[in-house]
């Protein structure tokens, strides 16, 4: 069973909002010499989930270092890249190295601050230096992880502009839509014409 002083020191350090010197602890406890008590407590906690440590003459309790991973576990969740981020990634992949301003010029819209961060967090984009032009803008390029994720041997495996055109991927959305609607429209028009002719 620990002695009164040991218990008091233990409680005082537990409740303290910052590390304390032995003098400060002693002063708090009516001027006692607490060094032995500190040593006893430190020994008691050895190997437990909590430890008493001294840093620069001040003592404090902390959780055992080897348990850090348990106290701050990482949880992974899958997230689909936003459309804006996907566009940025594609532009970087096709045009690298590119600056943020160039990305924006190609996309035609401003790129939100976090968008490039997300791509770097994902490990697909890295800062590839600075462009030697006024303002020395940061330039971005893809990483080997990018190639790995998309199953590409090299950037040359990305489909070319002509491939995209052939696949209809270069048609503006509106045209593609109009093409669809036009098809239907012809049929509808034929009906209308018939009606007029019937009337004649």
């Amino acid at each position: 069973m620990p002695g009164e002083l040991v218990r008091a020191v233990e409680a005082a350090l537990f409740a303290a909002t910052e590390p304390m010197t032995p003098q400060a602890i002693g002063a708090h406890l009516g001027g006692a010499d607490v060094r032995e008590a500190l040593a006893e407590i430190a020994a008691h906690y050895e190997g437990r989930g909590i430890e008493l440590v001294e840093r620069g003459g001040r003592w404090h309790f902390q959780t055992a270092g080897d348990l850090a991973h348990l106290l701050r576990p990482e949880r992974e969740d899958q997230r689909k890249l936003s459309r804006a981020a996907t566009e940025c990634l594609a532009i970087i992949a096709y045009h690298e190295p590119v600056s943020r301003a160039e990305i924006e010029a190609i996309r035609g819209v401003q790129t939100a601050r976090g968008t490039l961060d997300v791509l770097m967090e994902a490990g697909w984009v890295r800062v590839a230096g600075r462009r030697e032009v006024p303002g020395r803008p940061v330039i971005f390029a893809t990483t080997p992880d990018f190639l790995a994720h998309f199953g590409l041997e090299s950037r040359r495996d990305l489909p070319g502009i002509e491939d995209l055109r052939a696949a209809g991927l270069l048609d503006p959305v509106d045209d593609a839509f109009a093409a669809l609607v036009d098809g239907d429209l012809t049929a509808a028009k034929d009906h209308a014409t018939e009606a007029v002719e019937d009337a004649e």
Partner: protein
Amino acid sequence: MNDADLAVIAAEPDPDWELLASPPSDHATPDKAALHLDLNGWEGPLDLLLDLARRQKVDLRTISILDLVDQYLAYIDRAGMMRLELAADYLVMAAWLAYLKSLLLLPHDPLVEPSPEELALRLQLRLQRLAAMRESGARLMARDRLGRDVFARGAPEGLRVDKRHRWTCEWFDLVAAYGQVKARSQPVVHMVRERPVMTLESALARVSALLGVALDWLDLRAFLPARSEAGFADPQLRRSALASSFVAALELAKQGKAEMRQAEPFAPLMLRAAR
């Protein structure tokens, strides 16, 4: 917790009373205590009654209700003598207690319901309950309280889960996104297709010319160019001619140069020169 609020509540003076004498001492005999007039801080008649009952120094279950009534009435009298404004509920309680006392002292009348003993018992029960809660509150407050007597960890590290996102993107989405960007940024040229139309002017000229030679009502469609005329085999141009001729007929009718009639909705539209 808000310190200020607690302080305010704790110090809140009871506006109905003022302190006239030192607080009652526990050592005072019941008689002496009855002379005290500490009206500060009573929380209503029941509170005053409970304090008076306590000074009988007996178990609340065996208090003398009559003594209690007397003491209460003495207090109220004394307050009256000192010209204190008494809150109405104290006076109501005084009146009720005076009535109870008279019932208790008079020979028992079996017709009076509820019986005075019953009323006294109910008062006693109420006082017991208030006393029980007051004691419980005091015992609660005297416990080792977190933050006053016992303390939680002063500087906890905190527990938190670090969220890490694993981003996913499909190859197709990547390529399609690039296609969209390129398509969006291509210069856009708007072309209006030329379509065969019969203008309103030519329809107007044609309809008014034909009206001049027509003798009687004619179907509007008779005014249209024949299919054999150049280009008028095209159904689109025929529809345009029909629409333009209709508008031309309306215009002529408006100018008073033509008359129009229709037997019923969707019946042939008949036209002739104004008479």
